[in-house]
């Protein structure tokens, strides 16, 4: 007995000692200096995956559907980008270039596009891509039987015609966004029904296996028409929970994890990893329900804008990483992005209180910020905002809810006061970021309603001239800022931890992770 207890306490003491050992070693780490590593871990050469030319990438959320027409989660699209391609595809510079089509001819009136099928493009199953596959892929997302698969952006299509190796798509009205929309209609084999369990596309990587909530394995597709991938095999590991990914990196199980917070990256040994910084390309804001009291009053909304110091939010919740924004647009869309709006409201508590008094809230008011609890960055932002708003006499409380509830109550039923989320554009056009604030638009969950905005929006969507459209988009941005539709905060930083030796990470202006450029240094 004594021995048992002794052994048990010894184990416990050892564990504690080790733990405090870990703790004291790391005490100077917060500065994250690349200091000398005392007994350091796995450099590139030791990594067995560098030898076999493989890589493991950690992701925080499981894939929803592997069928490209059903996937809706941003995290799924981000990865499946490597397996699928449309007639055209995006580049890291934000351009749209031919992919499965080798040539695109746009008619002068902008009402028809002719896509020439690239020669020698093969599906992952070895079959050559044929015209019927193109028709099937586009039609399925345009008017297919399955409503869930339809892409709203393709509703401008009037007809799809085939002549030889040319696919002609006629539009009912000219659209500057058409190419970007057709980019998301991935080319898949006609009438192939097993996309869900054995997806087949034309991208540089092909599907090998998948275990739900565990992993997805991809392999280089050797018959790829373009620049082939460099790594032989890439495994995506699903690790939910903030500490799992960090532990995975530290223990050597993972080589790359994107979308980390600075709190997470400081835990990594700077000798074993480099931290690459991109931006998430989203508009993070305190989104206000413009139909709900007191946010139906523009003065109250403006008061909030004056009360919130964006830089303080970025400093406190994101350790300084992030680009402050003043409207519903981020810098990657440089053509549309109006930087001058960022400092339209600067911290001014006097002004905020003045506006609140004018609006009839001299003593401030109480408000609730509903946040999806699975998104730590948004929860942290909310926590900081509560603090900042307190200074202006506004008593805010954070209300974490689970994702299903958030989608239904906040996004679907608009039954909320304020929320924090990040809005993105998944197809390289600025339209998505602005269109949603039209008063009649279905996904305008903030209930923003402004006559001038609606008129400008209608004009912008009709405009065929690019310069004119750009001007109108900028006017929309200004409208959102001046009327303080929401408290715009920032474009969040995308911190990517990459194991030393793994090179070639490229950032895109849309939410994708291109694995075909990654390789191990020789």
């Amino acid at each position, binding site marked *: 007995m004594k021995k048992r207890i002794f052994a048990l306490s010894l184990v416990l003491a050892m564990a504690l000692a080790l733990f405090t050992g870990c703790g004291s070693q790391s005490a100077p780490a917060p500065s994250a200096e690349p200091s000398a590593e005392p007994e350091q871990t796995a450099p590139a050469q030791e990594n067995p995956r560098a030898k076999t030319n493989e890589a493991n990438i950690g992701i925080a959320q499981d894939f*929803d559907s592997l069928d490209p027409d059903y996937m809706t989660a941003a995290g799924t699209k981000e990865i499946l980008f490597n397996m699928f391609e449309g007639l055209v595809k995006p580049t890291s510079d934000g351009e749209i270039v031919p992919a499965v089509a080798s040539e695109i001819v746009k008619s002068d009136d902008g009402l028809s596009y002719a896509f020439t099928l690239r020669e020698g493009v093969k599906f992952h199953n070895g079959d050559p891509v044929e015209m019927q596959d193109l028709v099937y892929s586009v039609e399925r997302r345009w008017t297919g039987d399955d409503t*869930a698969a339809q892409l709203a952006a393709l509703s401008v299509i009037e007809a799809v015609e085939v002549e030889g190796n040319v696919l002609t798509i006629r539009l009912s009205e000219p659209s500057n966004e058409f190419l970007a929309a057709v980019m998301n209609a991935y080319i898949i084999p006609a009438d192939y029904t097993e996309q869900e369990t054995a997806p087949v596309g034309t991208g540089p990587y092909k599907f090998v296996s998948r275990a739900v909530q565990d992993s997805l394995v991809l392999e280089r597709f050797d018959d790829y028409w373009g620049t082939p991938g460099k790594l032989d095999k890439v495994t995506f590991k699903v690790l939910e929970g903030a500490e799992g990914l960090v532990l995975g990196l530290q223990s050597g199980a993972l080589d790359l994890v994107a979308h980390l917070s600075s709190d997470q990256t400081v835990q990594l040994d700077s000798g074993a990893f480099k931290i690459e910084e991109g931006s998430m390309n989203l508009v993070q804001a305190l989104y206000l329900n413009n139909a709900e009291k007191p946010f139906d009053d523009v003065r109250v909304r403006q008061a909030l804008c004056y009360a919130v110091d964006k830089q303080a939010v970025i400093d406190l919740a994101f350790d300084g990483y992030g680009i402050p924004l003043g409207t519903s647009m981020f810098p990657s869309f440089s053509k549309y992005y109006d930087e001058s709006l960022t400092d339209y409201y600067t911290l001014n508590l006097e002004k905020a209180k003045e506006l609140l008094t004018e609006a009839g809230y001299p003593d401030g008011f109480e408000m609730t910020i509903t946040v999806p609890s699975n998104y730590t960055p948004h929860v942290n932002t909310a926590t900081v905002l509560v603090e900042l708003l307190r200074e202006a006499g506004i008593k805010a409380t954070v209300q974490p809810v689970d994702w299903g*509830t958030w989608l239904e109550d906040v996004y679907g039923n608009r039954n909320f006061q304020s929320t924090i989320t990040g809005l993105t554009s998944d197809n390289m056009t600025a339209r998505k970021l602005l269109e949603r604030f039209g008063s009649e638009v279905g996904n305008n969950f903030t209930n923003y309603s402004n006559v001038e905005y609606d008129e400008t929006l209608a004009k912008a969507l009709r405009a065929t001239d690019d310069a004119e459209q750009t001007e109108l988009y900028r006017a929309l941005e200004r409208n959102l800022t001046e009327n303080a539709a929401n408290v715009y905060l920032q474009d969040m930083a995308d911190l990517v931890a990459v194991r030393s030796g793994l090179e070639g990470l490229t950032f895109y202006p849309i939410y994708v992770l291109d694995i075909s450029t990654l390789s191990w240094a020789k």
Partner: protein
Amino acid sequence: MSTALQYTLKRLGLLLVTMLLVSFLTFLAFELVSGDPARTMLGTEATPQQLTALRHELGLDRPFLLRYLSWLAGFFSGNLGTSYSYRQPVWGLIAGKLELTLWLSLMSFVLIAVISIPLGIFSYRFTGGFANWPRTALNQLCMAVPPFFTGILFSWCFGIVLRVFTPGDFPGLREDFAASLRHLFFGAICLSIPRIAMTVRMLRSTVISEMNKAYVRTAISRGNDRRTVLTRHVLKNSMVSVVTFLGQTLAELVGAGIVVEQVLGIPGLGRFLVTSISHRDYPVVQTIVVILGFWVVLAGTAADLVNQAIDPRLRLSTAELGGAGS
């Protein structure tokens, strides 16, 4: 009818009732909880038409009871349904995870039973004097350690410093059985430490209060060997509470494993359950919950059988209960 057969039938009946009850409660819960599976499937870009079409396709626009009955009909004909989020048959998604969770739970349970029962008995014999304090302190300390805290601790010490296993890289039972078991073993330790302490304490205090009962005092004063009294009578009587407690522990282990699975990156059932609830993936949740119900009844039955073997008085009362119930 023989008692054994009667007992079996009764237990099967209980199983059926519990599973029906738990599945119905789950269905009811989803009816009341806000959140729409169609919306979680289609995400933020869904149009109202798409939502309506999908709801119809999934049968979500049918009345509540009808949906429950059709699920039930499917269940009894061996069709567990198709996951909403993954668009794949539920059983295929769950089977592998169930296996892992069973391994984790059973390993923890074996650890708990094998360590705590002897330790509890010895802990009783180890009473009095100054040894009491460290024993009690250690026991209380072990109870106070949250499994997920131990999990983090183990990940750091054994995963990152000592590299005995790799947190975040679960090998998979098929690929590397030994490594998988090693990985699960750490989870099992995290899960079992506080429960071992609880069981030890439970056993000890039951033995002590039993030893103070009149019959024991009489037996000892009549000159019976203290040790014989302990093993023959006291332990037997004390075991009833302990076995019940262990049965309860076994039932709870699956649920308690969720956080440990999360921390150590074990792709088990618990983690899947939480995400599925969050995504309102009813068919998956429904199936997992029924499995859990099955598990709970199984654990209860096991505890019951063991107790009856130990203490025949209980067998009598069960027979009575059976008579009253039928």
